[in-house]
């Protein structure tokens, strides 16, 4: 089997350097939503967080704890009610061009074929998509979708579609990759594979990742640091450094004390919060 041309190599050919993750600094950020009847809902209480360049941070928390809101604000889609967000040491005003987002829903445009979906961000930035076509195909090949470029999203399974969404997010080698429960809608087996693939991708790209999830296992497996949020009004409740060697493998890591301890700590924290009921 021929080794697929990695996006890594493709990028080197195009004269870009890699391993260039960008940092995020969140300063007393607060988000208050106004409901239709004029009430205020505090989605996120004054939050501070620093994510180092190249770090993989996973955020876990119960539903409605404001973790998605936090992500939308880092993405520049929503603006904080108070506080300041710095991405790549610049105060954020709108989406940062070196940031990409992957949502739980793949949001592939059904009227575009796979390759055109992957090339969409370049089209939005008015770049010559022809230059990136080869890279898009190489990326698709890397995630096992070689030859699917001219298919349409409706012809692909949920897992395949989410892979395409990830290719679309990394086509420009983003410095910061934001992921909002990207594997939440997938079946357990596909999810496990995707988690492995994401780790491999990140080890190659060496970019910064903020990964939001409900899954304690996948957070601990993937992240350098796990951040536990409290129930609404959301705030950062606990942080946990995960010092497990990489590349991590499921069957090696599952029984390892470092992994089980971390998972148990997060779970205990949720029990103390009352999110999980202690038996």
């Amino acid at each position, binding site marked *: 089997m021929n080794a697929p041309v990695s996006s890594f190599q493709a990028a080197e050919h195009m004269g870009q350097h890699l391993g260039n993750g960008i940092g995020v600094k969140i300063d007393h950020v607060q988000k208050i939503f106004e409901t239709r009847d004029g009430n205020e809902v505090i989605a996120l209480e004054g939050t501070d967080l620093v994510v180092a360049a190249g770090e993989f941070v996973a955020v876990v928390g119960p539903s409605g704890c404001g973790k998605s809101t936090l992500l939308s604000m880092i*993405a520049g889609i929503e603006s904080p009610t108070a506080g300041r967000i710095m991405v790549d040491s610049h105060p954020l005003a709108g989406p940062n061009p070196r940031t990409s987002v992957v949502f739980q829903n793949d949001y592939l445009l059904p009227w575009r074929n796979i390759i055109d979906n992957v090339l969409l961000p370049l089209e939005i930035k008015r770049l010559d998509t022809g230059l990136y076509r080869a890279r898009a195909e190489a990326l698709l090949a890397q995630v096992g979708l070689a030859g699917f470029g001219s298919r349409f999203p409706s012809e692909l399974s949920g897992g395949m579609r989410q892979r395409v969404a990830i290719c679309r997010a990394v086509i420009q080698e983003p410095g910061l990759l934001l992921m909002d429960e990207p594997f939440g809608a997938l079946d357990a087996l596909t999810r496990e594979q995707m988690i492995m693939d994401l780790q491999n991708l990140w080890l190659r790209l060496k970019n910064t990742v903020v990964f939001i999830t409900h899954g304690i296992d996948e957070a601990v497996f993937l992240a350098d640091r796990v951040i536990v949020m409290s129930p609404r009004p959301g705030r950062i409740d606990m942080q946990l450094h995960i010092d497990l060697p990489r590349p991590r493998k499921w069957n090696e890591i599952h029984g390892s004390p470092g992994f089980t301890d971390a998972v148990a700590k997060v779970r205990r924290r949720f029990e103390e919060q009352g999110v999980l009921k202690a038996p």
Partner: protein
Amino acid sequence: MSEVRMAGTLPDIATKADPVPKSGADARRADRRRRRRLRSTLEALAAPALAFMLFAVWQIAVPLFNVSEFVLPTPLDILTRVVTDYRLLLTHAWITGAEVVAGFLCAAVVGILVALAVFYSRMVERAVYPLLIAMQTIPKVALAPLVVLYLGYDWGPKLFLSFLISFFPIVVATVVGLKGLDRGYANLVKSMGASEAQVFLKVRLPAALPSMFGSFKVALSLAVIGAVLGEYVAAERGLGYLQLQANANFDVTLNFAAVFVIALLGVTLYSIIIVAEKIVNARQGGRL
């Protein structure tokens, strides 16, 4: 079920054993294909065949029951009249056709603009949308004499009625189409740094197109009604006017011939929309 499985496994066995059963499987497959083609041909012919039958019944029943040509002409009488008087009919058809097209285009342009205003401004939505719906409860037909009063006897009232009657479905369908899009798509494209214009062109408009085209089809049929209605009320030209003339002369055949041409006009314009839809659909990768 079992037949399907057999057809799937047989060729494999056949290539290993001997070539004779293979041709059997091929023959079965060819047979199935032939049957499928026959069925789709029959389905395609169903509507024309039914129409033909109805006309045949009409054609036979008229002489059979001794109905006078002045009361009810046969389809062949009407067709003959369409052919012999094609010049007259064509002159009037041009007028009506132009009214319909102009009315429809105005409705499409204004309808889409109003829909955009409703979609992008909550204030406009609150102010205009209820009014539009209230307006919809007024039968436009009842406005026809008033429209003539204000806009005179020329093309004005026809265009206006045609516009008025076909405008509403376009507004509603466009608003519904635009609103039907999951917010996540817009957020995704915004996260790529898209301006609202880009969000609209790349996501909102393509997503709304299917429901917009649906409304164009409805609106076009309505536009024909509006134009002919305008001609009934006050006109000196057009197929509606020709019908009134025919009525005054007890020329039922010409009257029917005019109806035939109106129908033909509607079908032709409708086909143009379907072709446009197909073209857009193809450019969208057939996923509209």
